[in-house]
């Protein structure tokens, strides 16, 4: 029994960490600029495609493909942010929703055109395949790898946010945008950097997700729902919130399906509705 609980916690946590990488960027940008970017999942999708392509066409190893996915998405997002999205910060929520849905449509069509509708495959190096047995429990090596990557990134993010100058600026901009601007902070620039970081992380998450959930042009839509759940449950603009929300969602999902398979698919939605009714701002939301 205990070993089952351990394995469910482990698997759920790994899935949750994947969701965390995919959604943390959206949470922070939403909290900072109130900009609803439904195209966030599309960055994850293209991150996955970048990783698959460089591994296939250029034969680069997996560990090189991951940072490349991050960089490519960060650069792409800055380009899109500077040319398109920045016009919309003052626009209403509904217009942002409409515009970014439009972007998702275009992204899906572009992915279909370039890569075809076929499911993409990522070939992992041997040392990431299979599982190890510890105390009679089998742990998937790749899942452990995902957890490791996510924890390192969380540590970097928390450190960056608490200790660096940019981190302080971001916190200021999230807490009170007008005040920060009044104090001479270039909020737009800070935002552009945050946006790039967030989308880069989504790209990284997308690349990591290929092995677990696959990759096709509808990835952007599929993941959007999960990402939105994580963001709303965790609370806007909070890294720890996204972390907790994602872990909760991942573990809840896996545990629900394991212990009560008949109602497994309901559980996360019940959880979502219940949490939001009790805490409309999410678990860690400030406003």
């Amino acid at each position: 029994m205990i070993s089952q609980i351990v394995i469910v916690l482990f698997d759920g946590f790994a899935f949750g960490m994947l969701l965390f990488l995919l959604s943390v960027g959206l949470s922070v940008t939403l909290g900072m600029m109130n900009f609803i970017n439904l195209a966030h999942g599309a960055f994850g999708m293209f991150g996955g495609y970048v990783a698959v392509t460089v591994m296939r066409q250029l034969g680069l190893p997996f560990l090189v493909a991951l940072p490349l996915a991050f960089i490519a998405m960060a650069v792409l997002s800055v380009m899109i942010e500077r040319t398109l999205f920045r016009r919309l910060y003052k626009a209403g929520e509904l217009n942002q929703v409409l515009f970014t849905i439009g972007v998702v449509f275009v992204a899906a069509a572009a992915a279909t055109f370039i890569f075809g509708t076929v499911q993409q495959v990522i070939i992992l190096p041997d040392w990431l395949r299979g599982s190890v047995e510890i105390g009679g429990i089998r742990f998937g090596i790749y899942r452990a790898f995902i957890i490791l990557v996510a924890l390192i990134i969380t540590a970097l993010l928390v450190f960056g946010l608490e200790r660096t100058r940019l981190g302080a600026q971001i916190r200021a901009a999230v807490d009170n945008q007008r005040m920060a601007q009044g104090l001479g902070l270039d909020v737009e620039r800070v935002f552009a950097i945050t946006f790039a970081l967030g989308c880069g992380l989504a790209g990284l998450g997308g690349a990591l997700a290929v092995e677990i959930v696959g990759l096709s042009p509808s990835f952007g839509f599929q993941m959007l729902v999960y990402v939105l759940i994580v963001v709303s449950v965790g609370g806007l603009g909070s890294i720890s919130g996204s972390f907790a929300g994602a872990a909760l969602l991942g573990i809840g999902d896996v545990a629900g399906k394991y212990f009560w398979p008949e109602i497994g698919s309901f559980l996360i939605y019940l959880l979502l509705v219940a949490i939001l009714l009790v805490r409309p701002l999410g678990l860690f939301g400030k406003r």
Partner: protein
Amino acid sequence: MLKTTALAMVLGLGVAWSSGAVAQETLKIGVILPYSGPFADAANQLQAGIDLYIAEHGDEVAGRKIELIKRDTGGPAPDVARRLAQELVVRDNVDILAGFALTPEALGAAEIATEAQKLMVVMNAATSVITEQSPYIVRTSVTIPQVNYAFGTWAYEQGVREAYTLVADYGPGIDAETSFAKGFTEAGGTIVGADRTPVANPDFSAYVQRVADADPEAVYIFVPGGAQPAAIGKALVDRGLSPPDIKVLGQGELTHPEALESMGETARGIITTFHYTLERDDPLNKAYVDGYTAANNGREPDLFSIGGYDGMHLIYEAVKATNGDTSGDALIEAAKGMAWDSPRGPMSIDPETRDVIQTVYIREVQEVDGELQNVIVHEIPNVKDPLHGAAQ
């Protein structure tokens, strides 16, 4: 107020105007498929099968030029499929309805085929009941009970006594679960556990862990094609559930080429049942695979492609037999009992149920020339759908 009335009139006029077209010399085939959305890949592969047949056999049959009119349903959307079928019949004057990758969509459009008296060729959707919904429906793909019932019996004959079933929680999955279990238990086997996974399931670890806890002799798996076969395959390996420790059984989607590539070495020994095998050694199949890969940037044909290809074959031959008469009654009569050699092997149309009769192949993943392939280990010829007639 006035505006609304005017609007109503404009809309009303639009309908009256568009329905006034006349029949033409071309043979119009309305193809209804989910070209976008989560099943886009199935639609594209099926379409490529159709295109290949037309490219090989010319776009003219019995003196009539073939014209395809493609319509997108965007996913499992029976009401959309029905509306599109209606529009195709009424507005575009199509002679034949074709496509139908998904069961709900075929069911949605069936009534239109009956009312309009048009031949409806189901090129993929695989639930038994479909052909019973209209006397104008004929199927060129496969039915799930067809491949799985015999598979259950075979598994028992191979010495498997206990199996656990894990299927996707939707029509086809439940059909697969039922028919495999029926074949297996009637032969004397026991189902020790059965779970159903949500259709859009991103992570299988929980379900696979339940299978591992039960520690059965064999596990039977049915998941929709696409990303899931590889995902579930890898989840199985992570739990140590791979041959030879446990027999992994499934329907052919589980080991389609992309899934094999992704699973790699761990796929070895998985046994699947299917009606089409890419590597089947046969000149017709070789030519088909070569033609297909050449036309599609090296992409290999799959179950969808063969359904579309044979579907077009049926249309061509039926139109030839009626000498260009495209009334639904004439075409369906011509289709009944039709038999031919397809790249998948010999197949025919049951004159009573208008459903496909074909060979079921049982394949095992083995290494051939350094590559993992589905190698046929057993053939069961002339299999009919076991559920037809059972319901009446």
